[in-house]
């Protein structure tokens, strides 16, 4: 089976949710829609306090090309535009708080019915942008930007990412099992936009049921590829290397090697937006871990508060740590008063035993991190530079090529928080860069 270099194989921990059908989260009374839920430029709020909005109505307007709007998850009244703690940055950020009226009425004209395959490329891209679709694997990069590579970057391969290599998560797995047509049709729309005639649907071998089903359903132009189980296979660069053998140059993008990758969840969202005009107002998220009583795959509206979602899954049970995303790359949270975002692929609740953290010690230069690094970097060197804060030298050691997958930290016998050091270096570099720009 095909593979990339490096990587690790942590315990999969998917048993608790992989066989559970997606459950719909009931309509809530209060939604907190964060303004910034994508990677890229800012957006501007276009509703005011007291406004009556309906389901699917845009609440913000993107400023610039690499930006997307957010939409009302249901019908109701805007309670206030407040500042709330952002789950990703941890700082107070603008947030649209809305009270549901319980009627859950769509905005006029939605959902519509149209055939994306007779629509023009630009029309499709505009529909995707207006629907506020971002990469739903967690990186949240605006999808319309990824689907419009610049001239001179011909694309020949489209990859649908159904790998879901993060331990614990099973949202994409369930989606592929329960709504295979949506994923495949969305992929066909993306192929039409990109003008490619072949696509590969990548699934790890630990999801044999999804592989079987997809092989049955897939049209001839989409090939299903079963991959050996290895983390971080779902990372764009590693996935492309595993499937096509192509290596993205340092600092480059998938389009530099003629490839575009979209997550399976993103493909489903593309289909909804292009065929029915439905914006991205809900997603499937896996609520899991030993710290939650009843782990589930939940279809939840964007903006639902985390505490309600956890209540829906039976509440916490000896919980010590809550993480948005998976255990390898997810972001730890310190409050449950935060909303689900477009990129929240999972909510992981860990118990005290699983979060036992001992102090780290000096690097013993064993080289295990170097072996594990899927990007071929020297994490040991970077971590030592991180302790000193010398980002200039770290840049020469390809600091910016790190994808922060966490393999190095996972294998480190000295328990060193290597990714934390690397993030620290990147932050130093960014502040220094901002300063020199300002001068």
């Amino acid at each position, binding site marked *: 089976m095909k593979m990339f270099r490096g990587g690790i194989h942590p315990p999969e921990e998917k048993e608790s949710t992989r066989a559970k059908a997606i459950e719909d989260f009931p309509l809530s009374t209060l939604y907190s829609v964060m303004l910034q839920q994508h990677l890229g430029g800012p957006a501007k709020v276009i509703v005011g306090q007291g406004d009556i909005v309906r389901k699917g109505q845009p609440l913000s307007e993107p400023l610039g090309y690499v930006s997307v709007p957010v939409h009302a998850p249901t019908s109701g009244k805007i309670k206030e535009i407040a500042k709330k703690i952002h789950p990703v940055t941890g700082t107070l950020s603008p947030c649209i708080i809305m009270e549901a009226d319980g009627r859950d009425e769509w905005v006029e004209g939605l959902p519509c019915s149209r055939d994306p395959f007779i629509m023009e490329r630009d029309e499709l891209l505009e529909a995707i942008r207006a629907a506020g679709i971002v990469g739903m694997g967690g990186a949240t990069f605006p999808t319309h930007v990824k689907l419009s590579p610049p001239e001179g970057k011909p694309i020949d391969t489209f990859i649908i990412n159904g790998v879901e290599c993060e331990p614990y998560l099973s949202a994409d797995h369930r989606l592929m099992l329960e709504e295979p047509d949506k994923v495949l049709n969305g992929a066909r729309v993306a192929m039409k936009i990109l003008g490619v005639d072949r696509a590969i649907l990548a699934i790890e071998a630990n999801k044999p049921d999804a592989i079987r089903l997809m092989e049955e359903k897939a049209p001839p132009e989409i090939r299903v590829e079963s991959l050996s189980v290895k983390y971080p296979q779902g990372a764009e660069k590693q996935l492309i290397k595993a499937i096509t053998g192509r290596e993205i140059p340092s600092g480059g993008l998938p389009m530099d090697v003629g490839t575009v990758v979209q997550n399976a969840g993103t493909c489903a969202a593309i289909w909804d937006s292009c065929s029915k005009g439905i914006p991205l107002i809900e997603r499937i998220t896996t609520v899991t871990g030993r710290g939650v009583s009843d782990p589930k795959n939940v279809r939840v509206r964007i903006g639902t508060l985390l505490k309600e979602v956890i209540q829906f899954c039976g509440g916490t049970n000896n919980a010590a740590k809550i993480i948005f995303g998976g255990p390898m790359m997810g972001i730890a949270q310190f409050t449950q008063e935060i909303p689900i975002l477009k990129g929240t692929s999972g909510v992981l609740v860990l118990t005290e035993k699983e979060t036992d953290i001992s102090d780290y010690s000096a690097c013993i230069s064993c080289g295990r991190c170097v072996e594990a690094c899927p990007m071929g970097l020297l994490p040991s060197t970077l971590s030592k530079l*991180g302790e000193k804060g010398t980002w200039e030298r770290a840049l020469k050691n390809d600091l910016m090529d790190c994808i922060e997958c966490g393999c190095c930290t996972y294998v480190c016998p000295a328990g060193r928080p290597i990714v*934390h050091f690397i993030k*620290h270096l990147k932050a130093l570099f960014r502040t220094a860069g901002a300063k020199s720009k300002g001068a």
Partner: protein
Amino acid sequence: MFIATLVVGGIGAVCALILGISLITFAVKMDAREKEVMDRLPGANCGSCGYAGCAAFAHELTSNPDAVMACPAVSAEALKAISQLLGKELGEVSPLIACVRCKGGLNETASRYEYVGPRDCRTAQIVAGGPKGCEYGCLGFGTCVAVCPFDAMEMGEDGLPHVIAEKCTGCGKCVTACPRGIIALIPRSANFSVSCISKDAPKEMKKNCSVGCIKCGICSDACPFDAISVSKDKAAEISQDRCRKCGLCMSACPVSVIASLRMPDKVRIIPDKCKGCGLCRQVCPVEAISGKPKEAYLVDIGKCIGCGLCIEKCPADAIERKIS
């Protein structure tokens, strides 16, 4: 034996000759004063002069006739010695001191979560914006203390860094190291500073911290010199250029967030010199001066705030600061 000695000695002699020649031909011409100047600079290589280090600055001082003293850490004696060496008078750099603008220590400010990771404020800052309840407050991991090249800072038991005034040279290393911009450089002569930079509204701020600035504006109303600016989304800030060091703001502040670095000296009128013109009485903002024309005026020490406006105004040089 003899031959061996001769051969080895011969090789030695040839090498010595080559070394001797290269010493003369490749000698780096250096101003002899450069090393002397270098020896008198603090040698901490802190970089606050704007050069790569003390050696680079010493080179600049000796080679560039227009160079001015830019080292804030140089002592008065060393400055005098360097001036003598260079044969020109070097102006003094107005001395600065670091000032920690937060008093929300472990007991005063809430914590949002338990942080596990490298004990460095900059690494803690990137984890959900840091564990401190107040997003403007001191994180207390002591990065400023660690970077100080002069050992002029120490972590207190209250979880806040403290500046040791005698050691601080105002180099500014701590200012750049602090990820939250809490440390500022203020003139050494400054008397007061506000120990809070929170931009949160009082209600928000009070949730997390019991000692922050509540932006009530009483200090700025109390200031006779218009030296304090405060608005609803910015903590009070003292403009040190305008501050006359009277301390009225400090006594007016209802939450005691204004720190005094030292109390001002009050004034005294020298009876022999006073001509009784009364100008001092006119400029005094707190009506602390009384008297009759053409007689010596008197200062009410209880009322005097030590602003020194009268000293500037007096045409007869009859007012002095009394060391309190």
